[in-house]
């Protein structure tokens, strides 16, 4: 027994360099972006010296503050809608089943398969016709609709894990379905709600397609703003790196704090 233990220990230490190399490959882009954000184009070409020149150019060519605010507004509004419709619908599909609710559940969840690209122009023309593409509203609705299928699936799965007895007892105690939902189901499902929030925040914050198409130029998100900056090709590399850095920071911070929830959402239904 002892020699086997010894051998296992040694191979484990042997893995460390490999893991470190993989870590370098995964982290290098982050380092590159940070390093080159603090240069001028000249310093970038020589790969020597640092300055704030890139940042100055970024702020001159992109309304960074405004676009960060736009991203925040769109994220908060879309997530609020997603949470409202997915908790209510998830609860109904799991605990208040009615004739045909199974079919409706499948219908909602199957929308997961539709890539936005497939319906891009019909969607745009529809929203433009009702004048929703001149404000945040159109983009918020599109994000909400795209996030709802998975969020509803997640909430329904979660609520199925809560015992029927508990819900019934609450209803029998005179709480009624509305208050049972608000006062019992919602507090119990906070972990699932957190997962949806984190997952959707990162998805919406990082999205380009909706931000590019459904928002007026003045209300562009930071990710869309950054992408259009790059297609201009007139901007210096350090300015693009600075833009990349500032647009990535909020998502990375959220990731570092709520990692666990993100992992949960990604692998839900995959457990034993």
């Amino acid at each position, binding site marked *: 027994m002892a020699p086997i233990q010894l051998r296992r220990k040694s191979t484990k230490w042997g893995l460390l360099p*490999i*893991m470190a190399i*993989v*870590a370098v490959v*995964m*982290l290098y882009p982050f380092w*590159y*972006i940070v390093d080159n954000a603090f240069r001028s184009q000249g310093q970038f070409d020589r790969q020597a010296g640092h300055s704030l020149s890139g940042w100055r150019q970024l702020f001159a060519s992109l309304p960074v503050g405004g676009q960060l605010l736009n991203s925040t507004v769109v994220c908060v509004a879309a997530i609020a809608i997603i949470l409202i*419709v997915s908790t*209510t*619908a998830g*609860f*109904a599909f799991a605990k208040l089943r*009615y*004739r045909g*609710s199974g079919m409706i*559940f499948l*219908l*909602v*969840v*199957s929308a997961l*398969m*539709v*890539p936005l*690209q*497939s*319906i891009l*122009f*019909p969607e745009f*023309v529809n929203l433009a016709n009702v004048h929703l593409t001149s404000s945040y509203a159109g983009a918020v609705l599109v994000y909400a*609709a795209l996030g*709802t299928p998975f969020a509803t699936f997640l909430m329904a*799965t979660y*609520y199925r*894990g*809560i015992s029927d007895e*508990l819900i019934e*007892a*609450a209803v*029998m*105690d005179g709480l009624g379905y509305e208050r049972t939902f608000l006062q*019992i189901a919602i*507090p119990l499902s906070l972990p699932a709600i957190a997962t949806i929030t984190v997952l959707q925040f990162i998805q919406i914050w990082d999205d*380009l*397609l909706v931000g590019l198409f459904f928002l007026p130029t003045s209300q562009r998100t930071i990710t869309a703003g*950054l992408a259009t900056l*790059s*297609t201009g090709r007139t901007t210096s*590399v350090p300015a693009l790196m600075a*833009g*990349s850095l500032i647009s990535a920071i909020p*998502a*990375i911070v959220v990731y570092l704090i709520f990692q666990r929830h993100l*992992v949960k959402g*990604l*692998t*839900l*239904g*995959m*457990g034993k």
Partner: protein
Amino acid sequence: MSLTETEAGSVVRPAERRRGRNRPATRSRLARRRRRAGVLLSLPALALVVGLIGVPVGQAVYYSMTQWNGLTTTWIGPSTYTALVKDPVFWRVVENNALLLLAVPVAIGIPLVIAALLNEHVLGWRFFRSVYFMPTAISWVVIGMFALQFFSATGVLNGLLAHLGFGSSATDMLAGEHSALAALAITFIWSMVGTNTIIFLTGMATLDPTLVEAARVDGLSRIKIFFRVTLPLLTRFIQFSFVITVISAFSALFSLIFVMTSGGPGYGTTTLEFFIYQSGFQQVQLGTAALYGVVLFVIMAIAGLVQLRLIKPDDGGGW
């Protein structure tokens, strides 16, 4: 606060409940209220999804058989589909999607090995897991920004090659049709490492450790255990990550292509999803865009149906 409410709600009062159950009038009234609450609560989600996804899908199918510039529509009919199959541009674009599929086994294989390494739980494995998963948090736009610098003629890759003594092999990968697609595929593989590693780690956590132990007692080497014991038990997880990876390759690379190559050079990196954008946005042929949209949707639907079979909706135990 919420906890005490929950506890209060869970206090079962058997006498009251039995009385409630035994009175038919109360029961049917409750059943009616229950049904009404169910319909009411599921309505907003249904309306949102039908209005903003279901209806546009129907419209896309209709417009795919028309010439449409956003204002005027000319009906052509299902012949648009037969014309599509004869269009060499369509096949050029599909070829790019097919070539991207070649990246899928790599985008699964590398994370599989990484997950196996992490699963050995060496010193600091939690830290490494966080690091490997980190790219999942950043946008394709930012990844594309870096990739653009990495693959450019004066970029990181060529600098590295020159440093290693391969200076003569310096190339501008983004300038050639196939090499640009390869650059795109490499970037894609890098981006999928986090997601797929987490899927496999989750899978490995569900494995029965006694099986591995038994194989070890039988004298199998680490490598053999991985291929003969671990891998077969992970089949469902590998299928799942395969579907996720294919879906991403076909419908998540828009931003990467937009930033890195704009679909070029030529049709070099124009995939189905990017062609939809180009034909609609740049050429204002919205009918063509819808046509390609329907083709993409059908492919995604097939992948999605496979995925729905792999996840178990009745499983609440994952929490």
